[in-house]
């Protein structure tokens, strides 16, 4: 049993209204919500595992697969869409050989679609490890990805 999960649950208290902040903190700590962590939260909060799983899977923020070393999030907002976000996503899918929600076999990159980052004036936009890149084209994205691959970023 991980002491960290216990610590997080205790810091919030086991009132059911604290479930989402607890899941958020566990994900911040572990990078995702593992089966073990979910079971542990259920035990500590005295709620069934299925209830916890039901809540967690409802929200897109929560991940159930270990993310890659670099997390690539492609914005799919309307402004990004009309400025070419779809070809951008296609480029990453082809280049990395994974679908959104997956991690490359070597564990280096994971790919995600995100509804809207609110940086619409810079569309199309993507975020890699919290760093925002705007005004992208597939050519620009390719250059950035290569730099990550070569460990220059």
């Amino acid at each position: 049993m991980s002491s960290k999960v216990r610590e997080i649950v205790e810091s919030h208290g086991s009132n059911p209204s604290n479930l989402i902040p607890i899941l958020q903190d566990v994900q911040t700590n572990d990078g995702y919500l593992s089966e073990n962590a979910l079971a542990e939260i259920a035990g500590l909060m005295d709620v069934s595992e299925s209830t916890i799983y039901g809540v967690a899977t409802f929200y897109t923020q929560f991940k159930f697969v270990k993310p890659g070393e670099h997390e690539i999030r492609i914005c799919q907002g309307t402004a990004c869409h009309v400025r070419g976000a779809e070809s951008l996503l296609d480029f990453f899918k082809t280049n990395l050989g994974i679908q959104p929600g997956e991690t490359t076999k070597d564990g280096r990159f994971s790919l995600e679609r995100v509804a809207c980052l609110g940086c619409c004036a810079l569309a199309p936009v993507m975020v890699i490890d919290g760093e925002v890149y705007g005004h992208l084209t597939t050519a620009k994205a390719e250059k950035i990805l290569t730099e990550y691959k070569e460990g220059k970023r």
Partner: protein
Amino acid sequence: MSDFESLRQKARSKYEELRTGQKPVIYLGAASCGKAAGIASIGGKIKEILGELGIESKLVEVGCVGMCCYEPMIYIQKDGKAPICYGNLTTKVVPELIKDFLVDGDPRTDLALGAFDGPQTEGVPRLFDHPMLKPQVRVVLRNCGVIDPTDIDHYLANDGYVALQKVLAMTPEEVIEEVKSAGMRGRGGAGFSTGMKWEFCAKASGSPKYMICNADEGDPGAFMNRSLLEGDPHAVLEGLVIAAYAIGASKGYVYARAEYPLAIKHLNIALGQMREINLIGENILGSDFSLEVIVKEGAGAFVCGEETALMASIMGERGMPRPRPPFPATHGLWGKPTTINNVETLGTVATIIREGKDWFSHFGTEKSKGTKTFSLVGKVQRTGLIEVTLGTTLQEIIYEIGGGILDGKKAKAIQTGGPSGGCIPASQFDLNVDYESLTQAGTIMGSGGLIVMDEETCIVDIAHYFLTFTKEESCGKCTPCRIGTHRMLDILHKIKTGKAEMKDLEKLHEIAWTVKNGSLCGLGQTVPNPIYTTMKYFEDEYHEHVEDRKCRALVCKDLIRYHIDAERCIGCGICAGKCPVDAISGEKKQTHVIEESLCIKCGICFHSCPPKARAVEKIDAEVGQDG
């Protein structure tokens, strides 16, 4: 003098000193968009240069003034004169600018966008005379990009919490009456009277009561609430405390999107500062009104913008809506009376109280009073966050503020109201932007996203895009929305890929009707809006996709192909090198060819072809195929 008055006095002199002091001040536009545009490296460069030059200067991070297309932006204030704003900066230009202005006294008018209000510098135009800002009226955004959002003194020095003080000397009924007669309508979408909403909750029996600020700005393409929370969080929180007083709430929540970390950070800083000087907590400013406020982070669910779903989420459940009535005003959080207002609604409240209902209601039209913020994005020259009086035409917004369509292209439509809204064709750009006119045109005001589309935007693709979004976000509770969104998307997919027949269009209309009339909540009931409006205004484009298998905007992949123009190709080989599926062949310095059967239409060749050649082109899939 009361303790609070002396705090305000101190704040005023501190702010005055910053604004008129002799020591230079450099303001950094550090909202999310500024950060995304690279303000951190600009700031780093500035610090480096100041150190090298031995100049002592204060650096202040401010929010977004709304001119997002000019990010990264800084303002420099020298000799107590009004700060001068510089945009589109690079780490190359910045050292030059700092040295020229701060050492040699040259304000570099060639780089300046304009100066803020205050003592002016010769040769520099006023910032608020800039074509992007001149047609705007800044009521909600008055402090955004001007003050340091993490310093409550800046807000206090700019009439902050004057309205709250005034309210605490009024009865809740008087506060409600003031907001009601100002004609304030909710800025979250539906446009319901804010005063009446408060009245229902104030009159409801049950205790405690809850006040919620809905900061779950989920519409893709909209960022007004983010900018306001990042740039002036106290304005929203002052409105929240006033609303809580009016309805008699003892606990307040701000339900904010987790995708907005900076807004959440600024909200929490602001709440800490308010607690310290008793603007929240027990017996606020010596009155017998007490209120605690906390920030709840959403976890990514569009449907949580719906009131009952939002409340389920605060209570730690799946964010699914429930039928109304009973309304939240009587049965809200944990079954208690609750009011939910949008960020901008609350951001407007303090101004109404401070300046009076008559001042507020002289802006706008007969039924839509005041101003409204919009995020103006898409294929428009000047993108950004704007605020105009209700009743302004789309024409003025797109061509005067936005400076027209990008790259001299032709406008096709504008999309308002996010996934619940619709597309208005360019032929109707003389439409007034107010609640009634937009509803009449088949769309909604929504929270304020305005996405401009040009002739290179495919209207079927846009409908497909919104349906993809709402299909993902449908919570699944009611059948019309859960199944309907899937079936409508299936048909749109058929149209987009050239596999549809005319009877599919009829079927699409039929399902849209069922979803609109049979769904449980606002999400499902408005899902068909993008389909209705695009089919109504762009019927010919739908027909072209179905009958001619043609996408005139050259967007729908299955209906186009990429082709290399033999005469323009310079044989540089860049496209062949970048093609992820090795579909391009050709010798160096010889014309290259795309092997159609291998091509996945990713468009990398199109974007990487050197501008001097522009040999890769997108063409209609049928063109040149049969001979």
